[in-house]
């Protein structure tokens, strides 16, 4: 079966969605990613959706689920690269992706992940809150 590759880069996992996902593939990604976070003890997940031409309620829900599940597993998620037409449509559809952090591109997303991970480490130490 078709699968969306998950790359490991240091402390982070990277996913680039490049195909028009059918629902089962989206569900599989959700499961694979949670599994990978647990196995690799990654602290951050970056999902690049710049190739996605639409985000409907199903894919939106999947992104929300991934963010929530990774949070429970002590990892942060940032979704990057949403096309402007997709953003306009998503909001009109009624989805504002609550709980999902976004950045305009991969660089900005990596920066956001690094600062989130460092931030939560510091507050875990109790040194800075």
């Amino acid at each position, binding site marked *: 079966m078709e699968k969306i590759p998950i790359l490991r880069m240091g402390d982070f996992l990277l996913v680039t969605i490049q195909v028009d996902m*059918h*629902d089962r593939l989206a569900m599989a990604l959700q499961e694979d990613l949670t599994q990978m976070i647990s196995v690799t003890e990654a602290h951050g997940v970056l999902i690049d959706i710049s190739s996605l031409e639409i985000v*409907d*309620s199903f894919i939106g829900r999947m992104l929300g689920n991934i963010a929530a599940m990774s949070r429970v597993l002590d990892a942060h998620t940032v979704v990057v690269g949403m096309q402007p*037409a997709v953003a*306009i449509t*998503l909001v009109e559809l*009624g989805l504002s992706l609550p709980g999902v952090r976004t950045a305009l591109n991969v660089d900005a997303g990596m920066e956001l992940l690094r600062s989130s991970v460092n931030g939560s480490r510091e507050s875990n130490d109790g040194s800075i809150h």
Partner: protein
Amino acid sequence: MTVVSTESVPVKSEPDVVAVRRRVREISAQLGFSLVDQTKVVTAASELARNTIIHGGGGKLQLEALNGPRVGLRLIFADSGPGIPDIELALRDGFTTGSGLGLGLGGSKRLVNEFDILSRPGEGTRVTITRWK
């Protein structure tokens, strides 16, 4: 109003949702829709195709390219499933009988210019949407 072309696409199983998205994208691009309008009508079609499969037990989509005086795309999703007992309720955001977010019907209504739904319990559902260029 003139229907310049019409075609029918099966909406029976999950991979058909992807095929519907692709075909609606192609036709709306051919009709000269802006990228935002293409994205809106493809997203609406994706939601309705999934509804047809999950709630209607599968059905079909009829695509009609419209011209004269206005250019537009009309999509008719029809199934012979159990029907929707309370359409007002089904259109409300957050209402769901399935596992979705309950944005499918109300959300897709917001993405198009015209929206019509016809449903009788036991006889199926027909949702017609039109997006003008």
